[in-house]
């Protein structure tokens, strides 16, 4: 088998790994932001209920 195949394999692996890492990074960032949204909404409700008393 042509030993240049190894370089083709490296190139394709790196390309896909970069895409997958980027997707993971987006998912992680989104998860953190969702948590922040939930936390801030709870905080806002608490503020509003205190103000309503």
């Amino acid at each position, binding site marked *: 088998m*042509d030993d240049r195949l190894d370089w083709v394999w490296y190139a394709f692996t790196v390309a896909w790994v970069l895409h997958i890492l980027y997707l993971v990074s987006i998912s992680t960032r989104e998860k953190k932001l969702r948590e922040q949204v939930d936390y801030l909404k709870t905080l806002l409700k608490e503020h509003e209920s205190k103000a309503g008393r």
Partner: protein
Amino acid sequence: MESVSAATKEKALPTWLPVVTAAMLLVSLYLMFMWVPNERTMGILQRIFYFHLPSAFTAWVAFYIGGIAAIRYLRNRDNRFDDLSVAANEVGLLFTVVNLVTGMLWAKPAWGVYWVWDGRLTMQLMLALIYFGYLILRQSVNDPGQRAAVCAVVSILGMVDIPIVYMANRWWRTQHPGPVMFGGEGSGLDPRMWFVVLFTFVAMLFLMWCLVRFRRRLERFQREVNGLRQTIHAL
């Protein structure tokens, strides 16, 4: 106050989009590894080209989307265009990095070195650095309106660099292979190779659009967080 969006309720992608993208990427892998013939001089190594070239084209399309969205943001200050601009530019940078890395992994066995300061390579690296700087700039300006306006200008400047990258291997003929499209006599590809390049390019455009939509939703979440914070501070 920044508007509180309905990002949490928004679906990132219509169901058909990732399905079509995955199918097209699988078909393109089949075409580039099983269907298209080996190139005469480089042999199997040339198959890197089927990922390398379309990733550059896809990055350029993403940067143009980002640049046009930036122009539209500057014209009407609509945050949706800023969201689209940052999403397209970040995804464009990803494809540029893929292009640079696959190029280096092709260059090592072909030229004996990973990198040379050739015109095309240097200009493509500069393009990546412009957008890397763009992302750093976004982190360093606090005021949302000012951040969006300054970044829109950088995005437009980055877009202007793309024709220079494209023309670099015509203007400065050094190490990078000559142009394969519109390169005059002696340039061009076997029609089957062209077909694989174009098919992979379209598949990558679909992939790029999926990633842009995911990334754009992230920006909307951030805007929602900022809006909620401001509401709480105002209470």
